[in-house]
């Protein structure tokens, strides 16, 4: 088990990508030093350890940085793999490929769509982005049916890689509901995702790591002041 001095995480409380990594570390029972970043005023530390993208999360292990949240989750799974800590990725190569495919899909298609809702300048733009988000979620509903095989999570009986990849976005859906009265995952359209979201929210492995919606609302307002004209 890593000593605290060996492992640091540069993060932002409300970043779903950071939350995802924190959930992975928590599943492995690994302790680390968490250093909150101000993404509107980037620190020398962040720029030094992620000069290419200057983004969080950055995991620093024995002084070496690892960037890009999905690469970090795979790293964590490999370094703290075997034995007692649960495996995050499935064992079977085909299931691994499927989990990675949908995780990439979440980041490439779902994230830009819901961020678009948050940043929309006009009602028209917001409606379009909501529509895009719903279309993507319909595909993820089908993915859940195939991946879960009738079980509770994408990963089967317990939370896995794809649960983390999608689940870390859920608190933002609640935030958007509060701010704009939009319902993104609902029982009518995506019943499997709706009940999965409930189970994910209650899962012991990840429960305490979901930030307060108030914090996300505050961050969203700041983002809109900076980015929306």
């Amino acid at each position: 088990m890593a000593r605290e001095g060996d492992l640091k995480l540069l993060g932002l409380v409300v970043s779903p990508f950071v939350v995802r990594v924190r959930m992975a570390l928590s599943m492995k029972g690994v302790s680390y030093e968490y250093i909150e970043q101000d993404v509107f005023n980037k620190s020398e530390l962040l720029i030094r350890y992620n000069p290419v993208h200057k983004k969080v999360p950055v995991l620093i292990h024995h002084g070496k940085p690892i960037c890009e949240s999905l690469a970090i989750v795979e790293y964590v799974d490999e370094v703290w793999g075997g034995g007692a800590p649960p495996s995050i990725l499935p064992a079977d190569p085909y299931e691994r490929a499927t989990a990675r495919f949908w995780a990439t899909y979440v980041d490439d298609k779902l994230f830009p769509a819901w961020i678009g809702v948050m940043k929309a300048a006009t009602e028209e733009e917001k409606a379009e982005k909501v529509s895009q988000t719903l279309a993507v979620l319909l595909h993820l509903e089908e993915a859940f049916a195939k991946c879960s095989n009738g079980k509770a999570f994408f990963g089967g009986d317990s939370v896995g890689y794809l649960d983390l990849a999608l689940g870390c976005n859920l608190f933002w859906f609640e935030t958007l509901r509060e701010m704009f009265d939009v319902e993104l995952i609902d029982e009518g359209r995506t019943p499997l995702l709706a009940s999965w979201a409930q189970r994910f929210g209650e899962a012991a492995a990840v429960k305490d790591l979901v930030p307060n919606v108030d914090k996300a609302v505050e961050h969203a307002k700041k983002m809109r002041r900076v980015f929306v004209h």
Partner: protein
Amino acid sequence: MAEPVKLIGTFGSPFVHRAEVALRLKGVPYELILEDLTNKSELLLRHNPIHKSVPVLLHGDRPAICESLLIVEYIDEAFDGPPLLPIDPYDRAMARFWAQFIEQKCAKPFWMALWLNDGDKREVFVKEAKENMALLESRLHGKRFFAGDTVGYLDFAACGLALVLGVLAEVTGLSLVGEDEFPLLRRWADDYTSEETVKACLPPREQLVAHFSGKKDRIKLAVNAMACQM
């Protein structure tokens, strides 16, 4: 008896090449099914309904595996043979990081820079492409290939760059990279395309030049239309 492997691809695609070279390095026999992407087959649309793109890997009866870099990882994990990704977890994380970087930051600016009519817009993309190439150049210091002494995952991820620097420069008549710029990358492009296994699944250069020359007008039309919407 080994389950049959089929690869749905299209001529000249660096993405399809990634999957082919991975299969060959593992010594896995496969059937290559070439698509005409202007007239996609029912087979392709059925197996990749989300992205409708190539490559698509079919291994036995399993549902399709899509997305070229994921296919390479699958091939590495599902078949015996020399490892395609590094063994060490940190090196693996680095390889995945830089492959993502190439996908997100390199492919588009170069593609746009090659085919845009508007000189000013082209310059913007050339500048961006060169900034990103400088970062890739630094990854080759002291190494023959991105993966080390032999080709690996990150070299396959970068294979499109070899196409851009060679064949596409000839087809467009545009040398976006000066002769004294990025010596390590230009040397890498030559070494990569002459490597034995890579060469065996790359069409001859003249064929690639002819293929892209034939598509030139269509590509320019699409790229310039896209640029107007940006």
